[in-house]
Every structure is written in C-alpha cells, then in structure tokens.
C-alpha cells in the first residue's frame, strides 16, 4: 500500500485501469496516510472517508477501459470550491456550516472524469493570507517541518499532496495561492490562464484574478487535471471560448530551441541566497535540454505588490458584501435592527485579516480616494500587462523564483501584514496579467525545506509551461522526494 502512495496520479490511474490496484485499495492507502499525519498537520476541514470508500466501490466496475487517465484516483478540494450538500466553509466562522445547494463546475468535471474526493482542505480564511494561519479551523503545518507553515492560501491542499494523503488537489490562485504553497511543500502547482477554468462555484475573493488549478506531484499530473477541468462554461461569463483538452498528450519534454527569459529584477535584493542558487540551477537544467536562457530587464517589480493589493482588496470588499447573515451562513445573536444584524454578524463572523482587506478595499474605492488608489492601480495594471507583452515578444517562457524565501515558521508572518504581502512579489504579477504559471520543486535549502521555481507563459501558453516543467522533471527527481522518504526506505 505504501508503494501506491509514491505513484503519481497518472501512474496510479494506469495501475487502476490495468487492474494492478483497486480503487478501494488506493482510497484506503490515502485514508491510512491521512489518519497517520492529520493530527500533526491539520490539512482537512472536512474528511469524507466513508463517502470516498462507497464511491470507490461504485467506480470499480468502470475501471477497465475508462477514458479518463485519472479515473478512480483519490483527490481533495480546497474548501472554497462549492460541493453540493457537503459543507464549504472558506475556513471561516461565517460559513462554518454552509452546505451549498450546488457544486462548482470544476468539482463536477473532476467527478465526471471519475476522480473521487476524500474531503475539503484547509486554507487561509476566504483565501486571504500566505500561510494558512488565518483559518478559523486552526493552521495547517508543513509536512517537511511541522514548526513551519505550508504557505497559503491553498496550504491544506499542498500539505495533503506532499503528505501523501491524496494524489492531487484542486486549489485556487488569486495572487499565488496555488504556486507558493506548492513551492513551500515540494509539490507541483499550476495557475492556468485566466478564464480557462470556470469560476462557477468558486467562492469569490477577487474575481478578476481568481482561478482554480491543480496541485499534484508532477507537471504531467497537472496537465491531466487541467484537461478534465478547462473549457468554456456558460455559467461563468468570464470563461474563455478557447480550445480545451489535449495538454497531457502534447507533453513531449522536447524544449530544444525554446527561449526562456530570466527577469533580472526578480533575482536582486531580498531574494534568499539558497533560493537564487536553486532557481538558477533549474535554468541550467533547462539549458542542458536545449533551451536558450537569457537575462533581461523587467523594471516594474516595485509596483506589483501595491497594485495587486489595491485591486484584490477592492474586489474583495465588494464580493464579501454578500455575507450578511440573512440568506445562508452564520448569524450573530442579540441584534437590535437589520443594520445591527449585518454589523454584528460580519464583525464576529470574519477573521481579522479578512476585515483588514475589506476595510482596505472599501478605502481605495471610497469617494475622494478612488482616483488616487483604485484607478491608479488599474492604470499600472495596464503597464504591467504591456511589460509582459514585450517580454513574450522575445521569449517563449519566463523563469523566476516562486517566493523570496522557503517556508517561514508559524507565527512569524501574522504580526506584520505588510511583510507577508511583500513575500507575494513573484506570484502576483502573473494574476494581474491573467497568465499561466507553474511552480515546480527545484531543490532544498540547508534546513531541508523545499524550494520552488516558477515558469510563466503567455496567455493560453499553458501547454508550453507544462512541457518545460515536464522536461525539467524528466531530468531531475526533486518532485519525487517525500517528507517521509527516510521512514519509507
């Protein structure tokens, strides 16, 4: 059973189709791993072991000759992705008992592809945070070192995949929430091009930036998940009418002649020495497989984080106005009138980071400050988009760090919100420009913590991003390392 846990999602899917492993056996192996580690890690808000075993039994008959390469593979969902009848909390008090009357399109499509869910994963409250410490249900810990955070906001997802409690997970990424925890936990995570995965049923944080994507062991696994969930959805008006599917079959690992740009401004001051060295050696690996790698100037980096937080908070203040204690969710007691009901419910129902972002967003949108902050940020966003357009006129992909450091200790980030925001510098530009980007393990620091490298592609260049990561993973084994490697040997 332990051997099953070390397979990639695609390898497990193939073993299930060939009859070498049963779906129930794989599900039980994941549940055993979860039982072993959940007490120290806290990856799950809701566990659905019994339901998963029942579904495993029901799926088994269709295993032979199944069309989907992920048929029967156990996975889990970040708890901001709605699941009909299964509580979806956004790691908050205000949605603590919310059981949605519908499922997200991405969750439905995963189920149609024969995947089975083991439960709902911990996250920063309403996806606001970079450490999974703002969860109402307590922090998740990093499987590589339980004194460290797993990153965030999809920290439960990245930790669960790293801890072998599931083969892959769906997370969401507004400013790095898939890529940064993937980097901190030594797994592979992808934010696809904005609009290629439906946001229907994803509880909104910042709608112009939010995107659902996979966290898995390999780039090929991510490609298979995206093949299942990408594609137009009439229920999301921002979903693109672009061709979907075929990513997995397009992975050749051949990157000869591919032009990869290294933005010099991403490798300057503030970047940890060991992270820089690991990302630069990833560039060497890509070069050895035939890519041309070149440094170039990318001068807007100082403006990325302020632009991102103005736009994200503005949209959050609007999106979160729907949580009012009337239609669903938690309601405070002891109110005097309707306004008092709203104020008490929201003040007691939201955590402090959520309130901080609602207030910031309300401020930048308020009369007298709108032009100086919100409108200004939208103008800078246009400049950022332009800078990426220029870069992709010269390069097929960009390579950068995912985060300036490896995973911080619990408690280090919450005392200084601005410091936490600044650590998002390498991931937020991608969301502002709507681009696809992937985080892949590329080494470890001297404390034994994983380091991630980020590949960024042009809009709809998801295939090129995945292919370069696949080429890298054919050449390296960082993605195969397990936090429990030594015990397993």
């Amino acid at each position, binding site marked *: 059973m332990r051997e099953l846990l070390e397979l990639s999602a695609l390898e497990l899917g193939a073993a299930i189709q060939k009859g070498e492993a049963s779906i129930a056996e794989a599900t039980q192996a994941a549940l055993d791993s979860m039982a072993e580690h959940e007490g120290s890690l806290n990856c799950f808000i809701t566990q659905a072991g019994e339901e998963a075993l029942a579904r495993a039994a029901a799926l088994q008959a269709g295993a032979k000759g199944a069309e989907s390469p992920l048929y029967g593979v156990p996975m889990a969902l970040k708890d901001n992705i709605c699941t009909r009848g299964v509580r979806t909390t956004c790691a908050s008090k205000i949605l603590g008992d919310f059981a949605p009357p519908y499922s997200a399109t991405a969750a439905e499509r995963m189920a149609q592809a024969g995947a089975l869910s083991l439960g709902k994963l911990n996250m920063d409250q309403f996806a606001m945070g970079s450490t999974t410490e703002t969860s109402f249900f307590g922090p998740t810990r990093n499987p590589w070192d339980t004194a460290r955070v797993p990153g965030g906001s999809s920290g439960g997802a990245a930790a669960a995949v790293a801890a072998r409690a599931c083969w892959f997970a769906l997370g969401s990424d507004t400013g790095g929430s898939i890529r940064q925890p993937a980097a901190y936990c030594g797994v592979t995570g992808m934010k696809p091009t*904005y609009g290629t995965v439906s946001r229907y049923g994803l509880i909104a944080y910042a709608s112009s930036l939010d995107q659902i994507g996979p966290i898995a062991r390999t780039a090929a696994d991510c490609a298979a998940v995206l093949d299942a969930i990408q594609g137009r959805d009439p229920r999301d008006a921002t979903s693109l009418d672009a061709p979907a599917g075929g990513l997995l079959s397009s992975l050749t690992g051949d990157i000869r002649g591919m032009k990869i740009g290294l933005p010099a401004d991403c490798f300057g001051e503030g970047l940890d020495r060991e992270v820089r060295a690991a990302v630069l050696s990833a560039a060497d690996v890509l070069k050895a497989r035939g890519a041309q790698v070149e440094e170039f100037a990318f001068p807007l980096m100082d*403006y990325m984080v302020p632009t991102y937080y103005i736009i994200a908070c503005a949209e959050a203040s609007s999106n979160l106005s729907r949580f009012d204690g009337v239609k669903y*969710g938690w309601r405070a007691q002891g109110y005097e009138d309707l306004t008092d009901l709203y104020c008490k419910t929201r003040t007691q129902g939201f955590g402090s980071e959520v*309130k901080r972002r609602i207030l910031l967003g309300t401020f*930048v949108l308020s009369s007298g400050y709108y032009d100086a*902050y919100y409108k200004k940020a939208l*103008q800078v966003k246009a400049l950022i988009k332009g800078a990426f357009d220029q870069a992709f006129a010269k390069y097929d992909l960009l390579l950068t760090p995912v985060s300036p450091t490896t995973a911080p200790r619990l408690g280090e980030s919450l005392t200084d*919100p601005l410091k936490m925001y600044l650590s998002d510098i390498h991931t937020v530009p991608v969301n502002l420009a709507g681009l696809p980007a992937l985080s892949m393990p590329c080494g470890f620091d001297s404390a034994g913590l994983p380091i991630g490298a980020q590949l960024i592609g042009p809009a709809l260049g998801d295939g090129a991003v995945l292919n370069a990561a696949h080429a890298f993973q054919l050449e390296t084994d960082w993605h195969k390392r397990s936090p429990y490697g030594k015990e397993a040997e």
Partner: protein
Amino acid sequence: MKITTELVDYISDLSRLRLPEEEKAAMAAELETIVTYMDTLNTLDTAGVEPMSHVFPLKNVLRPDQVVPSAPREELLGGAPERDEETFRVPKAVE
C-alpha cells in the same frame, strides 16, 4: 497618507463592520503602513494610460434566452439562519 480612527470609523460603517474601540487604533496604524506603501505607485507616471479592468477583451457575453427551472425554494431556504415557510426572516426594516 494619514489614517485616523475617524477614517477607520467611516470605512467600517461603509463596510457594515463595527470594530471594538480597543482595536481601532491598531487597525488605523496597520492600514496607514499599508496605504503608505501603496503610495509607491505615485512615483510612476501613468498620464494618458487607460485603466485596465480586464486583461482579455471580453464584452457582452450573450447566450440564447432559454427558460430553465430555478433552484428549488426549499433547498435555497434550507441554509438560512432564520426562515418561515417561503421567505428569509429579518428584523423589521421599514416602519
């Protein structure tokens, strides 16, 4: 940019939030640090730059107008903190 506790009260009111008195000064200080950092944007010349809300030129996404049943009332009311047979219940809002 200076953020006073009066300004925190004003935006809290707009946000339907009511911070306890003892949290207001700390929130004002935190917001001031963050907003001062956001002021970095003022060092960038954006004269004549069109504000960009969406990166892709999507507009007027239309579909054929088809009649489909809406979600069952009982399911939608099922999650409400307080309800009666067919509506959400709230305190009296209009005298």
